[in-house]
């Protein structure tokens, strides 16, 4: 089964200016093969895959399917060519029945009265589900199925539409051991039927079990692609992480003071449990881990966006209650959100309005805004952070990603916080701006602020932090002191290997 079913040639995707999400990625998928696609958060996996299933069009490069070059304008397009995407979370129609979901968008045959003849389709569906080794009552609404079974329905839908290539994004994220086994059984069966898979996962154990070959992406570029036997776990981690201890920034000497924030037994629903951590004044503490480890949820809980179900928070050794974002801000906590465009900034607003959104009260008396003071502040911040590219009275959407991020940083510290949580502060930012942001963070620490740095870029975390916590599946699985920093160890703990 060595026929090549799909080739990605030099796929690159840029989103304006210099920020490329992926660059010159090559991929060859053989018939009946499973490619394990691995890489850190932000390595470009989802971008590459989105180009393949039609959600993005590549900025350059080409896609060849079955010896024909294709250009997909939408997921519908790619589905017509046999490429199907199964997202991490169910994306069908819970209110419709299973069989309706299977055949959504397709013509349904009719019987002589004029009614839909589901019986005919039942046979088709039966066959597919038998191959998958499951059986359902077709006329049950999808919402009544478990997550695992719903996933099977999504796979079944792809098969009914004669899928040749199935892309799965973190398919086992919400599944039990037994259910994972089932999925693997199904994948192996389908391989024999000439279906090919691109399997994206952070669970390296699973990759080694299910994949035939492994492709590693890092920083948007292809690092290596080879048969799985050519890798060992630690070698794989090395490829994902890059040269160990790639120092990208040199911290200036800082004085670490007393404990300022402590969190004990903090839990929130299913996202994280029994988290204990502490921050000291003047310290930068890194929080490493993979997507879904619960880091953002933890940060948002400390910031008052979510209400913790159990645990305590202490500031300067005194227990406090955080019930709202306002509380958190009053206690001197600030949070720079992960998604700049949808959580951090309001794109149609000017730079001025964005920068002062959290702190507008500093410029008001009885609610009336003192525009002079506001503009003075914004001008000062812009200079301090060298924000360039547009006048401060222009919409922030006109700025480059790096400058937007700097506006966001300025906005975050405008509330004069003492504890600053940064969630992926350099994501989608060009190299030059990154360096500037590192300097800003360094300065903030030197001023005695405590910083919690959430980042998926290991080099960044290692270069910037004084101490590193590692989260995995909702728990803190490791704490590293500065002299213990080891990229592969940290990546392994993140991936749950150690």
């Amino acid at each position, binding site marked *: 089964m060595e026929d090549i079913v799909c080739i990605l040639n030099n796929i690159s995707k840029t989103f304006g200016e210099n920020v490329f999400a992926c660059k010159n990625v090559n991929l060859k998928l053989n018939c009946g093969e499973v490619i394990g696609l691995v890489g850190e958060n932000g390595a470009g996996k989802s971008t590459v895959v989105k180009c393949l299933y039609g959600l993005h069009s590549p900025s350059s490069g080409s896609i060849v399917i079955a010896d024909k070059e294709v250009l997909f304008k939408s997921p519908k397009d790619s589905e017509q060519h046999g490429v199907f995407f199964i997202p991490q979370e169910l994306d069908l129609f819970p209110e419709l029945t299973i069989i309706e979901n299977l055949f*959504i968008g397709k013509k349904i045959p009719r019987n002589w009265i004029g009614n839909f003849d589901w019986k005919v389709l039942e046979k088709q569906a039966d066959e597919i589900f038998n191959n998958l080794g499951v059986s359902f009552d077709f006329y049950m609404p999808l919402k009544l199925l478990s997550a695992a079974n719903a996933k099977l329905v999504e796979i079944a839908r792809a098969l009914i539409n004669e899928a040749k290539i199935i892309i799965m994004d973190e398919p086992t994220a919400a599944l039990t051991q037994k259910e994972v086994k089932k999925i693997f059984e199904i994948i192996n069966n389908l391989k024999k039927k000439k279906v090919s898979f691109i399997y994206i996962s952070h669970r390296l154990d699973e990759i080694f079990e299910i994949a035939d070959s492994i492709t590693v992406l890092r920083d948007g570029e292809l690092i290596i692609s080879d048969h799985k036997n050519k890798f060992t776990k630690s070698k794989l981690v090395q490829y994902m992480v890059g040269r160990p201890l790639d120092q990208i920034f040199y911290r200036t000497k800082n004085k670490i003071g007393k404990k300022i924030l402590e969190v004990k037994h903090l839990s929130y629903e299913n996202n994280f449990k029994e988290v204990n951590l502490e921050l000291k004044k003047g310290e930068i503490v890194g929080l490493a881990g993979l997507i879904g480890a619960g880091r953002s949820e933890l940060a948002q809980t400390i910031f008052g966006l979510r209400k913790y179900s159990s645990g305590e928070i202490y500031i300067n050794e005194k227990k406090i209650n955080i019930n709202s974002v306002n509380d958190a801000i009053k206690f001197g906590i600030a949070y720079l959100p992960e998604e700049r465009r949808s959580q951090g900034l309001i794109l149609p607003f000017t730079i001025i309005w964005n920068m002062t959104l959290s702190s507008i009260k500093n410029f008001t008396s009885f609610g009336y805004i003192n525009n002079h003071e506001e503009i003075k502040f914004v001008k000062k911040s812009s200079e301090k952070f060298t924000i360039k590219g547009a006048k401060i009275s222009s919409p922030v959407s006109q700025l480059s990603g790096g400058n937007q991020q700097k506006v966001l940083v300025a906005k975050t510290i405008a509330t004069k916080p003492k504890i600053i949580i940064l969630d992926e502060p350099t994501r989608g930012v060009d190299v030059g701006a990154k360096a500037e942001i590192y300097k800003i963070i360094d300065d903030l620490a030197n001023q005695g602020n405590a910083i919690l740095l959430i980042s998926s870029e290991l080099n960044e975390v290692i270069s910037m932090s004084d101490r590193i916590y590692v989260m995995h599946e909702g728990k803190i699985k490791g704490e590293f002191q500065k002299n213990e920093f080891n990229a592969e160890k940290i990546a392994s703990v993140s991936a749950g290997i150690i």
Partner: protein
Amino acid sequence: MKKKYNNLLIKFFSRPETPVLVFLFFLIFIISIFTSNFLTVANLKGILEQVVVISIIALAVNQVIYGAEIDISTGSLLAVCAFVYGLVAMETGGSWIALLASLLCGFIFGLFNGFLSTYGKVPSIIVTLGMLFILRGGLLLSNPGTVLNLIEPMRFFGMGNIFGLPVSIYCLIIVIIFYHFLSFNTLWGRNIIAIGGNPRAAVNIGLPINKVRMLSFVGSGTMCGFAAAVYLGQAGQIQATAATGFELKVIAAVVLGGTSIAGGRGSNFSPVVGALLVGVILNALTLNRIPPYYELFVLGLLILIAVSFDGFRRKLLEKDV
């Protein structure tokens, strides 16, 4: 596993209209205790008459709401179509040709509403709010003092009887069957629920969003035309202020029946149950000598309760920040 779901009992309890149906029976029970002439044939017939007209339109608006849109112009459109029916009936003397005219009138305005709400990119609340007033204003302007009076034969759809049952009931049954067929046996029927429930996925899969939504408005408009024949038949006469505020009864029927105002969720029969609930409650008010202007108060309260319930349910299910 295959057989388990077919268990009728489970199916019955997981339908959205079940709690309302239960509540309805409970309510009827309570009312009949306190109100002497509630459970008489004459009274029940009266309730049914009102309920038929509300139901016919509510069944159609139900589909509009499935698609995550709304139509609040139905009262004015009902009146306009009723006038068309009346004028054509008086002119030609035939009730069937009048029905055709009324249907056509409803169809055209429904198409107009639908087109603006989808391809025209104007939110449906605005289109139908505007049309509510434009149609009413137009009606008042063209028929300022006119009272149309119909003679017996033309009132067929409201007063006629076939095999002992009122024609209006047959009309309702036809509409119920029609929408049942439409919903379960056309792609359109499945698609409107999909589009309202998960618009993003619907776009990705390539469902024809605008066309499907537009057709739901064509449905609500045409049903106004159909209901108008029954409405005028029952009332016998009509003036330009007829059916003012009627759209509220329709919306109340749909949301009380259990359809979610957010779209994508509901049942095809529940608007009838909702209409029954509205009819019963309003009737109870009348029988207990509560003045007619309390109607609005009650309708508003019912709508608020129903949607607050739905909102609360969604709030509990939503775990996101």
